[in-house]
């Protein structure tokens, strides 16, 4: 774990760049992480997913899978991949300042 400055704020990141403490997060950090991952601007649709992810994590202690996101966030799976290329659940978690979703075993 390392402490890094993102959007002028010190945050603790794991080896893959996920915040380890969700309380260190703010919207400017989200925008900065998004830019680093190839998303120039977070649209309302992006925010809808990021906020849903974050709320779920804070309420349940686990982040939803892509399938649950597709069923519950109001954004279908196909669009999730357009918004967050490669892994939507992982990237939305990273931008939302919550730990990497655990692949269930």
């Amino acid at each position, binding site marked *: 774990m390392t402490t890094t400055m993102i959007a002028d704020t010190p945050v603790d990141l794991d080896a893959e760049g996920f915040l380890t403490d969700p309380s260190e997060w703010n919207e400017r950090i989200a925008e900065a992480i998004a830019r680093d991952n190839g998303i120039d601007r977070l649209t309302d649709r992006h925010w809808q997913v990021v906020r849903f992810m974050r709320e779920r994590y804070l309420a349940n202690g686990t982040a939803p899978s892509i399938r*649950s996101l597709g069923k519950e966030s109001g954004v279908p799976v196909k669009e999730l991949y357009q918004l967050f290329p490669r892994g939507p659940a992982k990237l939305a978690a990273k931008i939302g300042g919550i730990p990497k979703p655990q692949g269930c*075993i």
Partner: protein
Amino acid sequence: MVANRLRRRLDAEQAEIHVVDRDDRHVYQPGLLFVPFGLADVDEIVRPRRRQLHRGITFHENEVDSVDLDRDEVRLDDGAVLSYDALIVATGARLQPEETEGLTDAGWNRRAFTFYTPEGADLLREVLRDFDGGRLVVNLIDMPIKCPVAPLEFAFLADWYLRERGVRGRTELVYATPLDAAFTKPVASEHLAALLVEKDIELVTEFNAGEVDGANGVVASYDGRELAFDLLVTVPLHGGAAFLDRSPGLGDALGFVPTDRRTLQTSARPNVFALGDATDLPTSKAGSVTHFEAEVLVANVLSHLAGAELTPGYDGHANCFIETGFHKALLIDFNYDTEPLPGHFPTVFGLPLLRESRVNHLGKLAFQWLYWHALLPGRALPGVGPEMPRHGKRMPATHA
């Protein structure tokens, strides 16, 4: 196995026990893996459910229409209503091939198959017997699935079987998974990825299949990658039983039942418990899990009925044999906190963990006998308790 265990603990004066199931065919699901390779017959792995139940348990062969949590009632498809003091949801997982675009269209059961049903496994046996080479893609659409190692085992066995048949040289074998590695946990993934390389099976990771074109033999991921196939062996999406969608408050969006990971009480109501594939727990959907859960769950149901405190006794313990072909198998053993590690099970003198051996293969075959004669009747396995044994495992420093 829960009903049988409960019947032994409660006499007829204390409780009526009712079991509801949609049919009278209990499938020994681990056996399905062997059917496509001619190593087991469907007849051998299916038995009547009724015969697995002890005396003093009433069996209802019905679909569940819905559960009314406010009235403590289960409604059956014939209109009958069963009221309950305690309800145990053990309704497993349902395959949903129709949820993947195109999968059940042209090509389904012709070029694209699953071995997760007796019918599919039987059809695959014929297809593999006549398979003359080409591209065989083994794929799981997305987690969670029952027995997460089964698709890997299928790839290993296919490699062995096609070599025996002399067509392996003309076959490209591909294993495509939505995970970012061969398996969910790092140490086991490394071992399993090395086996894939050894057996010349191509590994494609982070492949979230979104669409299947069976007629043209192409499976496409949501991020636009395409894999061509002559034969696709897939594990369809899984969800909970259909009645959960008709029972407000009981299941989540995928139809799995939110359950306390230690006590197995559901978050729906204090008098509703769940185990096995039906739950949303972050452990494998595997028979061993259900067996270990059953012991904890039964104790907690009895505590609940007696008005006593529940015991947070379940640790996520699971173990699985992983068949690797050539009459060998691996064994893995793990729980919520400890990933599958090398060593021996259940003690240093036991079966080798995470290493191919003939003993593990024999263990996997012998397990079917234990399943019918010890697990389903609800007996404990000698020397194997619900808690994961640590003795015998090589713990990395970070796990100390």
